[in-house]
């Protein structure tokens, strides 16, 4: 077994823990304190650079951030710059970051792979933006809206789930920086407060199974 494979298995164990075969109930997101579903985090997903990577491959020493997003949704677009800024900043601070597009491009052409590549380039994205080609990863997380963030702490437990902040349209008018505050809390070894938030958004356009 190669060192890389041993490391990947270790990351999977760290994130998934004993509930390795568990997955969220359909439409019900992972609970705070839960570990990420093992099959999902081991699934290889195509990145915008053409390489196949898994969530486990992106696990950070200080925590792991998974954001389900897409290209077409006005809410995702409104938060796009902030998502990129948070990802690019916190990946340098030990948080593994991956953006996942689980939408079916047959429903919105703008959610296709080529547009993902273009968007990542224009925004200067420095973290993976991958395609969930069967939407199974999103289903396993119980994700249902874009954007939707799942932040795991260094122990691999879900510490924060929900919105980026409380204003998708105007960064200057944000009053509650939910995700940024949660990232800082995780880095400090503290539980985020609040641990969960919600925002209006677009339903994930799941691919048919």
């Amino acid at each position, binding site marked *: 077994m190669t060192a890389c494979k041993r490391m990947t298995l270790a990351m999977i164990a760290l994130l998934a823990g004993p509930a390795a075969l568990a997955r969220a109930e359909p439409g019900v997101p992972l609970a705070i304190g839960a570990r990420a579903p093992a099959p999902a985090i081991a699934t290889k997903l195509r990145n915008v650079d053409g390489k196949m990577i898994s969530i486990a491959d992106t696990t950070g020493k200080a925590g792991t951030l998974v954001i389900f997003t897409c290209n077409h949704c006005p809410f995702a677009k409104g938060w796009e710059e902030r998502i990129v800024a948070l990802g690019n900043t916190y990946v340098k601070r030990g948080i593994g970051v991956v953006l996942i597009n689980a939408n079916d491009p047959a429903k919105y052409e703008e959610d296709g792979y080529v547009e993902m590549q273009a968007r990542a380039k224009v925004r200067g994205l420095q973290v993976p933006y991958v395609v969930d080609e069967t939407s199974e990863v999103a289903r396993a997380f119980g994700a249902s809206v874009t954007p*939707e963030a799942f932040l795991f702490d260094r122990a691999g437990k879900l510490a924060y789930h929900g*919105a980026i902040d*409380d204003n998708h349209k105007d960064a200057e008018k944000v009053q509650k920086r939910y995700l940024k505050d949660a990232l800082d809390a995780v880095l400090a070894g503290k539980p985020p407060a609040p641990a*969960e*938030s919600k925002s*209006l*958004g677009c*339903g*994930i356009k799941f691919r048919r199974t």
Partner: protein
Amino acid sequence: MLILGALGCRVPAALADTTPRSPAAVVVGHGRGLAMPPATLAGIRAAIGAPGAPAVLVNVWASWCEPCREELPALLRYFRDRRAAGLRLILVSGDDDDAGKTAAEDVLRAAATSVGLDPSQLGATLFTKADDDTAFVNGLDPRWSGALPATFLYRGRGERVHSWFDPVTYEDLEARVARLLTSPQTGPGRASKTKQPPRRKP
């Protein structure tokens, strides 16, 4: 609250919408075109729980939301067919800026016209969301992720009996709402006070 005002009833102070930005937004919808004043969760709940309706549908939508626009004609058609039986419809738009509100009005006007409803006398209660998203989403249904569209069914006194987190069809609504309506259904072939337009296939 809004329905009481629309019916010409005095609005109890306890049910008044506490939204600070729009103190005059009491009577909307019926007879007031497509104005959509901002409302907090408390204000929306007051409209839901106002007496007089055996069934209340609350639909959360936005003008930019394609699935929302696609389901709107079926929703309005159902309201058209069941309002005489007491169905109350509350539409809450997530379009909270001026451009969005204009777009929402245009979408709603077109959808109403397409099903034979006069937009100036829609009879539905219209709001734009003016509350914190987390509180708003959890307040309507903690199982709701916030994804649009979403529709919620209440019976008298604001008791939620069903939630749809996907676009609804006419049949979806009939399957759940009809049993709550106390009056005979109004529809083609049945006696009604006003002449109904020909029923089109959902």
